[in-house]
Each structure stands twice: as structure tokens, then as C-alpha cells.
């Protein structure tokens, strides 16, 4: 069962006997570390990555502002972690499955989720693929192989193991990546997922964004060990720790991880060391549990700036391009936001559809009763009434919505 040698005096180990290094390529000034080699990345792809990082940042800034203005009920930023999320996504095949936690909108941006698609979800309007059922930031896209976000933490991790097992049987050479925070990694589901992936030789990449906090709980109160990485040893799983603010290192590590997953059918754990620069969410105020100084120190390590400098050094990007892009992105966000806000809510029927493949008789009865009730008190239920009364409902909006689904 075990292949180890005997000893005759008791010796305890703690894991401090060995070190897990951090893989880094890019310094904050945009130059490579001595001895470091940039991954193969042509200008087009590098700029695609960079643009996705910038789009994500701008989207986050604008939407957080919109939330503060009361236009949006809730928001969560990826800010500070764009390199980790987008670097990893760029290293995958676009048809690989992504099962994310909630702070990974960058992955969607990279794969081409449009501003409109973001906004429809954020405002839960009739075009939201999720039909206005989940809180803002719970995106999903079938065409982009991005599993709809679910709030309960870590549940997606064993699901990723299962999804990837199915991919292995299908034999089309795809893998699944699952993103999660160092906090979520405390859940029992994490342990189950890694163990099953190892035992069943599953092509799945477990990507931990170790951003130092789970809401207010610092990593030091989340676990006593040197990060998440050493947990891989418990499952004899390939593991690498990477500087999560270093897009080149993340890209390269994920490329290699994908090879291990797809070619050897073995799971890999990646721990990306990064920092949640913003508040946990629009409901949070970090000043209660961490210092400005700490935040400032990490702001210095901004992953976008780091990549920008590298691109400028290479001559692939310029300050003018930067300014122009930022301006146009801001404009675009605002325009799409205005569009999305104005769209009607999903139809009343959406309350009972998709509970099952078909609406059950009991649910149909409940819907009918609700319709009768709302017809009695239309003013009390403006959203529900709007889809009941053809005068209020945008003509054909119902149909449009299901049309749009085709592109989900």
C-alpha cells in the first residue's frame, strides 16, 4: 500500500520539510525575471488577453459605480485578479469547460461574452439567459462553455470532476477548469473533488485564486498551512504555485497543466497567489478588517499595469491606444447599461418554467392562480402585470427572448 521505508525512532513531519516555490516570469516593471522565458504568445493573442483584462476592469469600475448609484442591486469585482482568471482561460481550448465561483467574469470577457449579455444578467431582464432568477454576476453561457454560476461555494468543484470525467469518456480531448477561492477550498466538496479526480484519473484543472481573504476572514484564519498547494500531496496530484498577478506565468502554468490533464488524464491543482483589491462585494466594506497600507502594497502589484508595461516594451501597445480603448469601453458600458435597464422583466411564466423540463399540472395551477390574483391587483405587481397585459408588454418580446436563447 505504501512504499516507504521503516524508521525505528518516532519522527513527526508537518510538511515544513519541503517548500513549494512560486512560479514567476514577469516583474512588476514589465521585464522578465532573469532566466525567465516568456511563453509562446503572439501579438494578437497577447492583445486579446490584455484587452480582456482591461474590459473586465472597466466593466467592474462602472458597474460598482452603478451599484452605488442604486441602479443595480449588487455587484462583485474581479479587480486585482484579472491576470489569474484571464491568463488561465487563454491557455485553454475555447471549448474546454469553465466552472467558476463568481469572481471570474474575466474568463467570459476573454471568450467573447458581450456587454449586452453581461448587462442583461446584471439587470435580470427578459433577455437574461438566467431569466432574472439569480442575483447579479451569476452569468452562464452554453455557447462559451461557461457553467452558470451558483452561489453555494465549492459545489462546482466536484461537479467539475464529474464533468471532466464525462469529457474523458467522450474522448474529444477536452478538459474542465474550475476556479475557486482559498476560502471555498475549506469546504468538504473541495476535498471530495480532488480525491475523486485523482482516483478516477480525470482531466480537470483545479484553479485556486488565493486572494488572501474570504469576505473578512484572512487566509491565516482559513488554514494553518503554506497556502492551498500542499493539499495536492494528500491526493498525489500535480500541483504548481504561481504568481497570480503575473499573466505570463499563469498562462504558462495553465498550458502545462492542461497538457497533464488532457494528455495524461490527470488532474492538476494550480494555486495562484493574488489579492482581492476591491471589497468582497458591493455589500462589503473592507476597512473593518484590513489596512489601507496592505491594500496599497498590493495595488503596486497591479496585474494589468504589469502586462501593459510588458506589451509597451515589446512595442505591441502604447499609452495612446490605452487611453482610446479605455474611453471607448467606458462609453460602451454606459450605453449598454442604459439599454439593459430599460428592458422589461422576464414574463410571469418564467416563475414556473425550468423547475422541471415540463411545467407540472400543480405548477400550472399555481401559475393560473397567480395570474388571476395579479389581474385583480395589477398595480401591486407592476413587473408581473407587464407581461400579462399585452398593452404593456413589448410586442413579441416573449418570442424575442427565446430567440436570443439560441445564442446563449
Amino acid at each position, binding site marked *: 500500500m505504501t512504499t516507504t521505508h521503516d524508521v525505528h525512532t518516532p519522527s513527526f513531519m508537518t510538511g515544513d520539510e519541503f517548500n513549494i516555490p512560486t512560479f514567476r516570469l514577469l516583474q512588476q516593471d514589465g521585464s522578465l525575471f532573469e532566466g525567465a522565458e516568456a511563453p509562446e504568445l503572439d501579438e494578437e493573442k497577447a492583445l486579446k488577453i490584455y484587452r480582456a483584462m482591461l474590459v473586465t476592469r472597466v466593466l467592474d469600475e462602472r458597474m460598482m459605480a452603478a451599484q452605488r448609484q442604486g441602479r443595480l442591486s449588487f455587484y462583485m469585482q474581479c479587480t486585482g485578479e484579472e491576470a489569474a482568471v484571464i491568463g488561465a482561460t487563454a491557455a485553454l481550448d475555447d471549448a474546454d*469547460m469553465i*466552472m467558476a465561483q463568481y469572481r471570474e467574469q474575466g474568463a467570459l470577457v476573454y471568450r467573447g461574452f458581450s456587454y449586452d449579455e453581461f448587462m442583461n444578467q446584471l439587470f435580470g431582464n427578459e433577455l*437574461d*439567459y*438566467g*431569466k432574472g*432568477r*439569480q442575483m447579479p454576476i*451569476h452569468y*452562464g*453561457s*452554453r455557447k462559451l462553455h461557461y*457553467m*452558470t454560476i*451558483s452561489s*453555494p461555494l465549492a*459545489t462546482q*468543484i*466536484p*461537479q*467539475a*470532476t*464529474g*464533468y*471532466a*470525467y*464525462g*469529457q474523458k*469518456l*467522450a474522448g474529444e480531448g477536452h478538459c*474542465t477548469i474550475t476556479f475557486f477561492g482559498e476560502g471555498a477550498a475549506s469546504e*468538504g*466538496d473541495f*476535498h*471530495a*473533488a480532488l*480525491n*475523486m479526480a485523482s*482516483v*478516477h484519473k480525470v482531466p480537470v484543472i483545479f484553479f485556486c485564486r488565493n486572494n488572501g481573504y474570504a469576505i473578512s476572514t484572512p487566509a491565516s484564519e482559513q488554514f494553518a498551512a503554506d497556502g492551498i498547494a500542499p493539499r495536492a500531496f494528500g491526493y498525489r496530484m500535480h500541483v504548481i504555485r504561481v504568481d497570480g498577478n503575473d499573466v505570463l506565468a499563469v498562462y504558462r502554468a495553465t498550458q502545462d497543466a492542461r497538457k497533464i490533464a488532457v494528455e495524461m488524464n490527470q488532474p492538476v491543482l494550480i494555486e495562484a497567489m493574488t489579492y482581492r483589491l476591491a471589497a468582497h462585494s458591493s455589500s462589503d466594506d473592507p476597512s473593518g478588517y484590513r489596512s489601507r497600507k496592505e491594500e496599497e502594497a498590493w495595488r503596486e502589484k497591479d496585474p494589468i499595469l504589469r502586462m501593459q508595461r510588458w506589451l509597451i516594451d515589446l512595442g505591441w501597445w502604447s499609452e495612446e491606444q490605452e487611453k482610446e480603448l479605455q474611453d471607448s469601453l467606458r462609453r460602451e458600458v454606459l450605453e449598454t447599461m442604459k439599454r439593459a435597464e430599460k428592458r422589461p422583466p422576464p414574463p410571469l411564466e*418564467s416563475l414556473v*418554467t*425550468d*423547475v*422541471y*423540463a*415540463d411545467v*407540472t*399540472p*400543480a405548477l400550472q395551477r399555481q401559475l393560473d392562480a397567480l395570474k388571476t390574483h395579479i389581474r385583480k391587483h395589477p398595480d401591486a405587481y407592476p413587473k408581473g402585470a407587464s407581461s400579462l397585459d399585452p398593452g404593456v408588454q413589448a410586442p413579441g418580446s416573449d418570442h424575442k427572448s427565446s430567440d436570443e*436563447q439560441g445564442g*446563449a
Partner: protein
Amino acid sequence: MPRMNMLQAINNALDIAMAEDEKVLCFGEDVGVFGGVFRATSHLQEKYGRNRCFNTPLVEQGIIGFANGLAAQGSVPVAEIQFADYIFPAFDQIVNETAKFRFRSGDLFNVGGLTIRAPYGGGISGGLYHSQSPEAYFAHTPGLKVVVPRNPYQAKGLLLSAIRDPDPVVFFEPKRLYRASVGEVPEEDYQLPIGEAEVTKEGSDITVLGWGAQMEVIDKAVELAEKAGISCEVIDLRSILPWDEDTVVESVLKTGRLLITHEAPRTGGFAGEIAATIQERCFLYLESPIERVTGLDTPFPLTLEKEYLPDHLKIFEAIKASVAF
């Protein structure tokens, strides 16, 4: 027609489903080489290979998490939980994930392919943790279907339906019937409808309703009642969620009386839901209060299991009381 016990019928259903569709996978604790602690998955690994029928590590939340992912991917997982008493570590994956997968994604993704099988119920001297009947927990969870078969024929037909159903199904197998219940079962593929109750006996004085292993108990009680001159209509609910209100309503409109029995504790058990619905829909037709004959509001005992269980005598007495009301 061959005679099978319930385990053989279940094994046969799994065999047919796996033979027909290579996307069907069976897994769980000890289901591989050993064929499951009750042997419901016997020989499936031999026939379909280790990739499609296998042991999992001992972690129910992982089994169902894994199964949810597989189903979302398009596979058709049939996950076994070794005892229904051990389904609770997977409760979050079932209640927050399985049940809400389609709804929350606006049908972009679903886990409709998933079937969760678990041996369930008492009567085998299993004490607290090998006897529970947790159907009511799942019946309060929109998005799930919950099915309990009463004999081998039903087990095969309902399990095949469950596996092919577009929605996730929790399939509870009354384990005390595994070997005890034997009957004729067609060798070929067939399905029985999910969501439809079955009137197994017509009668005029009272409707007696149950599911799973209670159906045998009901039959014994009804035999006594009929001898005492009481004509009973008997209904096997079969699907706990969604449940077939109309069949029950129709029966109660005729008999004017209803008795519901289950092994689970009374408070919050599914009989309460049925009683609440039926008193509403049949209010003016009820001639006596709807009776519930259930387990006590306690954990499941051992030495005094017989005293705890809602047996035929308790049902018989309740039938008499209802008719005499």
C-alpha cells in the same frame, strides 16, 4: 414471465439501461467489483467495464457532486447512496444544486439525466441509521422527482423511467422488499409513468394510501378490514414528487374518507402534505378526519422496532376508527 425479487428487477433495469445507452454510468460505494452491498449492481462492471460501473471513494457529497457534473455534461449517471440514511452529506448537492440546476440557468444547463438510487426504510433491525425514510425532505424540494416502488415489477418499470426522465429523480428502494418481494417481471424493456398514482384495489368506504413497503402492510390491513365489512380503495402513490393529486381526489370524492400511512415520523412527513391538499380539494365530501398512521416523532429505534412501525394492526384500527367516526 420470469420471477424476480426486487434486487434482480433493479439489476435487470440497470443492465437494460446500460446496454441501450453507453452514456449510462453506475457508481457509488462498493458498487464496482462487489456489485453493491445489496448486490443491485452485480455483474455490471464485468459487462460494461470499469469506466462505466465503478467504486467511488467514501464521500456522498462527492458522489452527488460528481454525478451533477456528469449529468450537466450530458452523461446519464445512476448514483447509488449505500443507505438513504447516508444521503444527508449530499443534501446540499441535491437540494441546492441538482434541484435548482435547470431553473437557475434558465435551462442553459440541466442535470436531468441524473438518477439517485438509495435503499430505504425500516423493518430490517437497522436501528437509527439503517432504517430512515427521508422522502419528505426531498418532497419539499421543487426541481426533484421522488419515486418509491412497491414490488419488483414496479421497481423495474419505474427505474427505467427514472433513468430516462428529463428531470433528476431520487429513487428510494424499500430495502426490506429487496429479497422478500418476488413477482413476475417481463424480461424486456418497459416503463411505468412517473407522477401517476395507481389504484391497486377499488372500494367504497375509505381510501387507503401509501407507497413502497407500506403497500404490503396496507394489503394486510385491508384484508382485515374487508373481513370486518369495510370496503377499501387502495392507492399506491408511487411518485411522491410530483404527486398525483387528481387520482387521490377522485378516490376520496367517492369514498369520503382517507387514511395515509408512511414509516417516517409523523410531523412534517409527506402524509401531512397530502392531508392538507385533500382537505382543501375534498372539503365538503369528507365524512371523517383524514387519518395518518406513521412512525413516531422520534429517531428510529431497534429493540422496539415492531412497536414503532405503522403496521397492519395500527392501520386496521385506524380504518375502523375512521369509518366509525
